[in-house]
């Protein structure tokens, strides 16, 4: 296949544009959910000034988008490039439109209709109490793992790329300032945005020149990098407690709104690049193999189906999104009609990050001569020779460098500046996801103990205190990230023992959320006929795919893991996930039969 960059741009935008109008607006919003702008949302009915606070539509879109777009939409597609670019692109486009965006929108709206509770608690209404508490406990554990992973990734990035740390130093106070001038000084949102964006640009320039080289204890036995890593873990853990416990209007809303501009620029520049480089062909291989061997899966042949959801999560569909949608976003939605942009639109935008900012640039850069001249690739190598993170950074840097060159600048300067920009942007998103995950884990913890509110109010008050609940997440998650252990011959953060299981845990969560939402649509909204099947079929497809993926992982990948502690740790989690998976489908079918009998 001999595609031009401009053709990919057109395909992506036409599919997403049509999906937004016809699938999102006409089908989901108008026909199934029947969103009503006059119906008060939980942000008003349960307003508490901390978590339940109405947000401007675009502010909330920024929060939702920045929170769901951690490292996932970038690293996943970069790994999946081992299939060539065509299969990952197809999955990102169609998985996103028919499964991911539907899952995100319905999770958000079902939560809104039940007072802003999590999708796990919504499941009680359609699958029973046991389903609710099982899934709450499961999600809490998953979020502890997410915290450990993200605090670790952010700490490594800050230790290795000190300019990213400078950006964080500038960005958080700027977000507070932005919130202050918009919420308190009453400055117009557009004017406030312009001021903030100018400061962000200046901040990037400052950070590019002035890295933040955090000190460390030279006598630390694990070496300089890991010593700096340990210091960042402590700093970011304290940050996460603060950010997850403070009211959303104070830091989360303004910070994520501004973050969305960074993400937008990220996507916009890639789209602009494909216009400037309209005559460039994708030199990357469109299709390599249906089952290439991947190091992320112990070097085993990794079949596109059913493994693809375990590789590309956030860009196409991810269970974590249902937690954000039914966690922070549903508590801030000020109008039901805003949910289309926030839930469905946020997911499509994330798909655009994967397709336009990762798959397209990597395919353009594949074996470009400039990369050999710069010494990035050696003779006989191509982009697949690089680590997934480097595929993304080099690909984005290459595409941007070519754009700058065509506009009259230097390729090498454009390459280096935008490669650093991509790394800094990635670090910003990771930090956003870090404190959102802490807040979501706090919600799950608080919901788990709601039964105690009548039995022992003082104990309930203590356990669900927002500072205590956030501290607990950070304590357990931090304990998984802080120690450094030897895995496969090199030092790694301890959470990596369990990390291979995370993809399965996350996508099982997606299946749980979509099945819950599908049952809610059938049972409560009484949707029947072909419209019902448009929700049921993707839900079943996802469950079958994730189940097959977990079985494949258990039979093919787990036995080949070289580190025995990893085999036991991650393996046990996946096996428990499989048991829950079947339990879940039992509750689902039971609910479906009950609903069809009652009509």
């Amino acid at each position: 296949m001999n595609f031009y960059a401009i053709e990919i741009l057109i395909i992506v935008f036409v599919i997403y544009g049509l999906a937004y109008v016809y699938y999102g607006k006409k089908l989901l919003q108008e026909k199934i959910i029947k969103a009503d702008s006059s119906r008060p949302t939980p942000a008003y009915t349960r307003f508490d000034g901390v978590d339940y606070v109405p947000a401007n539509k675009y502010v909330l879109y920024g929060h939702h988008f920045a929170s769901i777009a951690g490292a996932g939409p970038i690293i996943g597609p970069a790994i999946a490039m081992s299939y060539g670019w065509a299969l990952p692109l197809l999955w990102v486009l169609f998985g996103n439109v028919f499964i991911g965006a539907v899952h995100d929108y319905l999770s958000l709206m079902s939560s809104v209709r039940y007072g802003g509770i999590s999708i796990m608690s919504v499941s009680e209404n359609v699958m029973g109490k046991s389903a609710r508490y099982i899934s709450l406990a499961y999600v809490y554990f998953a979020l502890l793992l997410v915290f450990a992973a993200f605090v670790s990734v952010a700490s490594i990035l800050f230790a290795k790329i000190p300019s990213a740390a400078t950006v964080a130093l500038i960005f958080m106070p700027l977000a507070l300032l932005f919130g202050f001038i918009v919420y308190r000084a009453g400055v117009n949102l557009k004017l406030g945005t312009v001021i903030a964006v100018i400061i962000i640009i200046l901040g990037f320039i400052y950070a590019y020149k002035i890295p933040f080289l955090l000190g460390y204890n030279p006598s630390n036995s694990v070496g300089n990098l890991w010593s700096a890593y340990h210091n960042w873990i402590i700093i970011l853990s304290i940050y996460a407690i603060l950010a997850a416990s403070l009211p959303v209007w104070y830091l989360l809303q303004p910070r994520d709104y501004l973050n969305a501009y960074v993400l937008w620029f990220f996507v916009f520049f890639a789209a602009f690049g494909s216009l400037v480089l309209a005559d460039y062909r994708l030199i990357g291989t469109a299709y390599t193999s249906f089952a290439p061997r991947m190091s992320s899966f112990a070097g085993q042949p990794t079949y596109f189906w059913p493994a693809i959801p375990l590789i590309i999560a956030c860009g196409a569909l991810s269970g974590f999104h249902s937690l954000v949608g039914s966690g922070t976003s549903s508590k801030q939605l000020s109008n039901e009609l805003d949910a289309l942009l926030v839930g469905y639109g946020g997911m499509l935008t994330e798909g655009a990050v994967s397709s336009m900012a990762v798959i397209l640039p990597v395919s353009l850069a594949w074996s470009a001569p400039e990369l050999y001249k710069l010494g990035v690739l050696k003779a006989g190598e191509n982009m697949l020779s690089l680590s997934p993170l480097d595929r993304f950074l080099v690909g984005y840097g290459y595409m941007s460098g070519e754009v700058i060159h065509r506009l009259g600048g230097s390729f090498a300067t454009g390459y280096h500046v935008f490669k650093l920009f991509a790394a800094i942007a990635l670090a910003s998103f990771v930090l956003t996801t870090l404190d959102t995950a802490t807040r979501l884990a706090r919600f799950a913890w608080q919901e788990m103990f709601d039964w105690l509110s009548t039995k022992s109010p003082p104990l309930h008050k203590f356990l669900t205190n927002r500072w205590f609940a956030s501290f607990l997440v950070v304590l357990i998650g931090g304990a998984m990230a802080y120690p450094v252990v030897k895995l496969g011959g090199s030092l790694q953060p301890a959470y990596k023992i369990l990390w291979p299981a995370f993809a399965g845990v996350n996508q099982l969560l997606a299946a749980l959320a979509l099945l819950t939402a599908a049952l809610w649509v059938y049972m409560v909204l009484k949707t029947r006929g072909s419209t019902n099947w448009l929700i049921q079929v993707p839900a079943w497809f996802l469950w079958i795919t994730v189940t097959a993926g977990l079985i494949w992982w258990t039979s093919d990948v787990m036995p080949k893991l070289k580190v025995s502690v990893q085999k036991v740790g991650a393996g046990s989690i996946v096996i428990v996930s499989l048991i829950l998976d079947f339990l879940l489908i039992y509750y689902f079918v039971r609910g479906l039969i009950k609903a069809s009998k009652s009509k």
Partner: protein
Amino acid sequence: MNSKEISGTIITIIGIILLAYAFIVGGVHGHIGNGKAFTSDDLAAIIGWFFIIGGPALWFGEVPVTIRKKIGSQETTPKEGEKA
């Protein structure tokens, strides 16, 4: 101003001074901190950062007037059939 607001004001102002100090020293040296032993500028950066994040919460801790107005203008009881 009550004691909470006064302490919030002091913390915020100290935070701004510390962070400004770190940025200025960083601008002069070409980097904040030196990547070896802790220096005054990297400590100022970290402490200032936390003070700026936490200080205004004490200073302006209450919900902003713009949000209160928004809440006041909306119906705050769920419609019939909606689970509260």
